[in-house]
């Protein structure tokens, strides 16, 4: 029988991989939205927020349309690369990542826009390339906001249901994450068993917040040390 543990471990794995996808892509998109001035940015901004504006079931439907066997994309991935997204844990990762993306990007945008552009241009004037400026100036100064956005993304990924059940199905041991298992148990009238997993979800959220707070605390001491050393 599929135990609670396999459900929990799968959920953690899906959410961690989804978050690992969201962070780098989210940082690039947020940086472009905040620092670049070019036409079409509004469209990008809208696209980023779209997963929050429509119901997750629609996202799941769209994912099925793209990655199902009736779409050329789905067939190409399956036949040529041997990768199947529909009804695999990769589908669950993709669904979680897309639904978590807007939360991360919004937080990253606020964090990056809070970084003094004069510091960035000073670095550039000293010969640093854009990537180096981003890695050594922007990222460290926006660290706290980036952590907050990443926390939001991870917790949102943990709770993803509507898009996941469409693209990944609900197969115990393969794609059944915590929210899907809760749905199955309620559908079967096993409310007590469902409640157990609700408690697990709350505990995981609490642990995520504690990890986030710990990392924020670390950077605070790091910054004050930097201020003590650096000329003001």
């Amino acid at each position, binding site marked *: 029988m599929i135990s609670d543990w396999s459900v929990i471990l799968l959920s953690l794995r899906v959410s961690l991989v989804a978050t690992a996808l969201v962070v780098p892509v989210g940082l690039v998109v947020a940086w472009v939205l905040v620092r670049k001035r070019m036409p079409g940015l509004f469209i990008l901004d809208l696209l980023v927020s779209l997963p929050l504006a429509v119901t997750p079931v629609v996202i799941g439907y769209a994912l099925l349309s793209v990655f199902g066997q009736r779409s050329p994309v789905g067939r190409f991935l399956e036949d040529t690369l041997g990768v199947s997204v529909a009804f695999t844990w990769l589908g669950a990762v993709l669904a979680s990542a897309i639904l978590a993306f807007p939360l991360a990007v919004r937080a990253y945008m606020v964090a990056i826009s809070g970084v003094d552009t004069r510091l960035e241009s000073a670095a550039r004037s000293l010969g640093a390339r854009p990537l180096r400026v981003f890695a050594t100036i922007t990222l460290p100064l926006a660290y706290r906001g980036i952590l907050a956005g990443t926390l939001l993304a991870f917790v949102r990924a943990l709770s993803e249901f509507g898009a996941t059940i469409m693209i990944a*199905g609900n197969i115990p041991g393969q794609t059944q994450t915590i929210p899907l298992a809760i749905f199955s148990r309620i559908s079967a009238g096993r409310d007590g068993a469902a409640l157990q997993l609700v408690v697990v979800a709350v505990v995981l959220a609490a642990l995520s917040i504690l990890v986030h707070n710990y990392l924020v605390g670390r950077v605070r001491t790091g910054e004050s040390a930097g201020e003590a050393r650096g000329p003001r």
Partner: protein
Amino acid sequence: MTRHSLAAIAALLLIACLSCGPDRVAAGPPVRVLAAASLGDVMRELAIDYRAQGGAVEISEGPSGALAVQVRRGVPSEIVVFAGQRPMDELERAGFLEPGSRINLLSNSLIIVVRDTYGGNVTSLADLAERFEGKIAIADPDLAPAGEYAIAALQSAGVLERVQGRLVRSLDVRAATASVSLGTADAAVVYTTDAIGVENIRVAGTIPPETYPEIVYPAAVLNGARDLDGAHRFMEYLKSERASATFRSHGFTRLAAMR
């Protein structure tokens, strides 16, 4: 062994761990069954039994609407089982079913449940109208077929108008059962299968099946099946005496007749 090769092995292991699906089955894809959520528990129990006999099957459950979309968008799967004829009719019309494979697998029935502390003697819908004053929960007929059946039964019993003011519409039939269990309603008209294993309620009476439309759970093989033989074998298993004992233990009646 150098530190580099150790690191390389560790990285490979990590990639392998991340890229393989959990509990991956070794040979050939298993027969994949898309099942209505209300059948999830019993289908999983059957799958375990089928695997113990050497078969390969996996169950994915969800709301009927989601299952129909999954079939239409080409999720590789062999069998669908719905909790109503409508989604199956649509798939059949759109040409997704293996011709001749559709059967009416299971049936369900309607019962009256009350709080287990209720001491009165209510056994029929007429009793609910005449000798009962509490709230009666049903699934919302606009949202769930269980509600349509309950309304039809109340109508046949000639008591719909008298209980109208005391009817409480729940999101679905599970919620109707839960509202009695939790005490927000005093009685409910629900499926036989819903009362099994629910605390704080008891079955007060069964409703004559001729007073509402037949409740049917149809099953069919999909013509996009990767493994047609395997699909037909599992359908035979679903129709077997062995499987029907499990269905009965969950409150279902096996029909397994050709439509």
